[in-house]
């Protein structure tokens, strides 16, 4: 009996030894900021001297502010338009680099993955170098062949496209790796059987690869949705949210309220509201895709 008790205690100790570091990090970097944010959202905290309890005022202000809804709507639209590309491009790249007919697969994988290593601001500067309206490479090339330069910084649609291209560029390599892992787990027997049955490669892709990658696609979908909803640093590096407010997304809006206008309490309330919206989106996605179950 005592021996069993000792073993149980040892197991419990080992359990806490493994869990404690993560638990501490989680507490300090997630739970405490979360509770602080919730507390700030009920105050008029200005970052230093003022912190009076204001009840639900910040929430009411946010929920009656047209700019908040406009920015949230813009963010959702950007995310929805971006999602197909964020899923399809990595999937196609993964299919390409796992194909036996492609040479130098390691080199190609490395080249596709390199942008993932860039910080978002470096990526923004690089994209600016290419898509800059005045001194950008693309406009230089267009002018070289007699085409009028495009107004990347003045046309809201073009500005959004540039951010979208940049976002796909920096994230494709990461999701490609996830898909490669998924593809490697698919039994080659299935492809052989399909081939014997006369299925073409395209039919095998849509009939075998895509359905069997559903769990991976679910994760990619969830992660890309969240990252697109949170798009911030790339926007700062490329368009600063302009022209006007046409590329100002919700995180930039919250940042501006908090760190530029020093309304930390209001920004916290916005953050809580937006988190709730994002959670609802994640749950809906989870339900709609059945958690990626095949």
């Amino acid at each position, binding site marked *: 009996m005592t021996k069993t008790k000792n073993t149980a205690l040892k197991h419990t100790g080992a359990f806490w030894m493994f869990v404690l570091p993560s638990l501490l990090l989680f507490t300090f*970097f*997630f739970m405490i*900021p*979360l509770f602080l*944010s919730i507390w700030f959202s009920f105050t008029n905290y200005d*970052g*230093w*001297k003022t912190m009076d309890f204001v009840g639900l005022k910040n929430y009411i202000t946010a929920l009656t502010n047209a700019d908040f809804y406009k920015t949230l709507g813009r963010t959702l639209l950007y995310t929805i338009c971006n999602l197909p590309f964020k899923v399809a491009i990595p999937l196609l790249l993964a299919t390409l680099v796992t194909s036996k007919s492609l040479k130098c697969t390691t080199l190609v994988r490395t080249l596709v993955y390199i942008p993932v290593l860039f910080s978002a*601001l470096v990526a923004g500067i690089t994209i*600016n170098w290419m898509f*800059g*309206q*005045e*001194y950008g490479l693309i406009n230089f090339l267009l002018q070289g062949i007699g085409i009028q330069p495009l*107004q*990347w*910084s*003045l046309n809201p649609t073009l*500005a959004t496209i540039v951010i979208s291209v940049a976002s796909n560029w920096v994230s494709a390599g990461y999701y490609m790796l996830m898909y490669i892992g998924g593809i490697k787990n698919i039994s080659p027997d299935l492809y052989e059987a399909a081939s014997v049955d006369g299925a073409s490669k395209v039919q095998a892709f849509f009939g075998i690869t895509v359905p069997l990658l559903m769990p991976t696609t679910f994760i990619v979908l*969830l992660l890309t949705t*969240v990252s697109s909803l*949170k798009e*911030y*640093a790339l926007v*700062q*590096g*490329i*368009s*600063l*949210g*302009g*022209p*006007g*407010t*046409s*590329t100002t997304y919700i*995180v930039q809006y*919250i*940042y*501006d309220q*908090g*760190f*530029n*206008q*020093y309304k930390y309490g209001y920004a*916290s309330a916005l*953050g809580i509201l*937006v*988190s709730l919206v*994002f*959670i609802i*989106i*994640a*749950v809906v996605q*989870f*339900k709609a895709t059945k*958690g990626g179950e095949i």
Partner: protein
Amino acid sequence: MKKLIKNTMAGVMAAAMLTSLAACGSSGSGSGSASTTSTGTAETSESAPITGGTLKVTLSEEPGEGDALGNALDTWAAETGNTVEKIIISHDDMRTKFPSMAKNKDLPDLCATTFLHQLYPDEFVDMSTVLDLSMFNENALKLVGKSYTSDTITGVPEQYTTTCIFYNKDAFEAAGIEAPTIEDPWTWDELYENAAILQEKAGVKYGFAADVSRARYDILMYANGGSIVEADGDTFKVTLNSPQNVSTLERFVQANNEVMPKAIWAGGTTDNPVEYFKNGDAAILLSGSWNYNTFSSEITSFDFGVIPSPMGSTCQSAIIGGSALAIPKDAENVELAEQFIQWLYGDDHSNYQDYLQLHKGLSVMNDVSYQPETDKAKEDFAIMQNETNYVTDTFMTDEASSWRTYKDAEYRDALERAVAGEVTAQEALDTFAAELAEASGWEMAY
């Protein structure tokens, strides 16, 4: 039950990802800070009773070879046997980092700042207890040194800058345009007209460019008789959406569509109009006098000069600003910081004269002025110095109201939205005026 747990986990996962964003937000805009230390070697002078101390100074720019303040600090350290620790914090990060330093009881001994001492006057030493302030230019004291909410001088002026207009002499010559003079300045309409001629005849991409700063745009407003507020007994009324201001913004939007790089004021690019001027792509630039030295050393492909600010419907106007040296009351080495300030502005002003010769800017002291080496620089500095006479009463009233303590960045955002075409000039100014009135508690005049 299993499904419920899975759904809850998914929700918590998403919340964790999102909230980690909030935790990361406090890192500021990413410009960060850096710290360097220099140590003096000379023996302590008689006028410097403290030796062996370390003066911690926050600067907003990375000190370079010609950095006047950095050089003055190093010279003082060498003369007095003290040490200087320079902490570089970008201008944009100052407002978030200073409160953090105060909360952590890690304040610098001396701040080179454009606004902290005005925003938080209670946190800084009253400079009238440190120096005889009568040696300073009165406007510099009022606009650069005084706090927003009282008459206390919480910072001694260090740099003094004015809005000014640079022009490309070669482009003017190619377009056959004669530069205006102090005696015969252009009107703003003439500036826009000549900008169009420059685009047409001199082949420049843009006739006119302006820094993305409300302090640049506002000189147009003041020149046309507008203002942000007007005095109303002991309080103020918001006048930002007055008819003359709407008209000024409408004309500015039109100029952006015709002769200016619109993307800059539409807020869609990180490009700096100063670079456009340096590259020869913009022929006229509305910027700050502090650019003069950079232009002198970096512009080699054409000659540049300075022209007086144009006349609006009412007057000419200029906005004066600058940087001050301020001492946090709760700093560890307040006396050491006072010692440095007394050394810099001391009785014979020779140290400030040395500073000014390196800084090559406008003097904040009555009896000291920068002595340019060339005739061209002398002419240009005469024009820039003259600009300081165009500070309007309306600007002084606006500054006295401290309206920027209620709203600031939103004003430029409103102007950008008008230029981008998202809203009309009237809508942009009405919206911001209403926000300012609500935040300040002042009535709207229009």
